[in-house]
């Protein structure tokens, strides 16, 4: 902690203590100044692109929206079971397809199981690009390529899941205990046998946990995939929004909320059983 002496003597009684040196103080002020000006600049850009007339009556619009949403149209529910079933299928098959592709990817990307550093960077590249694109964007792409429907949704979920499952799984593989690997190697096992009997049993619980966790997230994401035409309950949501049928929208929200709660509960139970 730096000390500044107020008079020319070096007696501690007249010393002033501070947490930072002069230079650090200046630096921190400069950082704050830069940060705040950047924020104000950004705010100005947003404010320039906003029609403030619309913002001024936002409370009125909000109240209007809520009054149209309540009560939800309960008798719309029977028409929603089929889309909800589709949504769950999109999430489940998407997750399955995703983990099937993520599994080899993770083994190729983990530092201790990869056959070659070049293959490792290729696998990492796949994982990173899958992670950085949201499943809605994947769905948007696939809908333009494959046409609207469940298949685009399933593939979108699968493509997004590769990165998530792959990343967590390869980290789990890199953290395994080396002793079982050495023990199995010492018996003269081949590379594949080492994988099957030393690496796999160690990462299996983590793998199951990660997959269930991703399934839970995928249920959430697949509820909105329909907004871009990729099937599921989001299609109904989009139709209800486009026709301004807000009582139907609130009904769909309630159903999504319930589904998410149930899937979260299942995922928590299963993860507890595995880990």
């Amino acid at each position, binding site marked *: 902690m730096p000390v500044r002496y107020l008079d020319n003597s070096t007696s501690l009684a007249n010393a002033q203590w501070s947490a930072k040196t002069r230079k650090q103080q200046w630096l921190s002020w400069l950082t704050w100044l830069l940060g705040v000006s950047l924020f104000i600049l950004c705010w100005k850009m947003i404010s320039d692109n906003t029609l403030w007339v619309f913002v001024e009556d936002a409370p009125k619009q909000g109240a209007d929206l809520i009054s149209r949403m309540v009560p939800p149209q309960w008798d719309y529910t029977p028409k929603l079971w089929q889309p909800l*079933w589709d949504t769950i299928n999109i999430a489940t098959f998407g997750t399955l397809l995703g983990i099937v592709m993520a599994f080899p990817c993770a083994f190729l990307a983990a530092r201790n199981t990869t056959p070659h550093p070049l293959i490792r960077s290729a696998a990492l590249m796949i994982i990173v690009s899958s992670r950085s694109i949201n499943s809605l964007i994947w769905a948007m792409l696939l809908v333009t390529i494959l046409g609207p429907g469940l298949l685009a949704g399933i593939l979108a979920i699968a493509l997004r899941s590769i990165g998530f499952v792959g990343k967590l799984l390869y980290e789990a593989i890199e953290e395994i205990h080396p002793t079982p690997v050495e023990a199995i190697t010492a018996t003269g096992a081949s590379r594949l046998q080492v994988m099957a009997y030393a690496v796999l049993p160690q990462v299996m619980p983590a793998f199951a946990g990660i997959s269930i966790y991703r399934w839970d997230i995928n249920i959430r994401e697949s509820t909105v995939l329909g907004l871009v035409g990729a099937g599921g309950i989001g299609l109904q949501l989009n139709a209800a929004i486009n026709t301004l049928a807000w009582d139907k929208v609130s009904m769909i929200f309630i159903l999504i909320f319930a589904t998410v709660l149930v899937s979260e509960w299942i995922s928590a139970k299963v993860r507890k059983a595995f880990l």
Partner: protein
Amino acid sequence: MKPLLNRTDLARQGQWRPMPLIRDVRYRYLLILAVLAYFCLAFLSIDVNWTRVAEGMGRAARFLSAFLQPDFTSRSQDIINGLLESLTMTLTSTVIGVLLAIPVGVGAARNIAPLPIYLFCRAIIAISRTFQEIIIAILFVVMFGFGPLAGMITLAFATVGFMAKLLAEDIEDIDERQVEAIRSTGARWLQLMNYAVQPQVMPRLIGLSVYRLDINFRESAVIGIVGAGGIGATLNTSLSRYEYGTAAAILIIIIAIVMLTEYCSGYIRRWVQ
């Protein structure tokens, strides 16, 4: 009849097998059956228009080739505008969201907040975390009109739930001894927060804010689809015009920025902690 061999005997005869994941045989078969039944049912209910898929293959090939030669130039102005909007939305929403999340997070920590405040703050967190950003964006677009303001409010709202929850958990895990030490000097509540709690949670708070900045950028690329501004709107337009070159360029830019921010945020988090 020969008695059933147990696992040790089987292992002695060289017929060892790994332990099954589920111990109870009946339970195991029931689970397998249930899963199979679900798959059959689900598979039958998925109907895929294969002719349409086959038609799409040509487009898929064109899209892949567009990835090899992305078109950055012909819509460069739209791309730059969208990107700037996304980045400004990301920054402002993270700052506002974190600022709002700090009081909520402090209120949602059971060890320093009284029960009514705790329940109130936990309710805010639950509401903000339940729905996807895009659903919140739809509602805010209706309320505030099209444009980046609705997107910014959406992202800030989502940030509050995320940051407040993690901050509250962090505060609940702090070392009580330091709090006691400061309290025994006769410190007031604010002083207690500033000198006992803040130094313990600050590094993680900064790390999480940077992480959230990263997430907010990714999300800002999506909420444009429902009219909340940002690069998502540009991407949506380019795809519906079948301009694959531009779409590929936008995707490449998004991936590059995400990789960059992820790298930077990892670096900053290591530096802070």
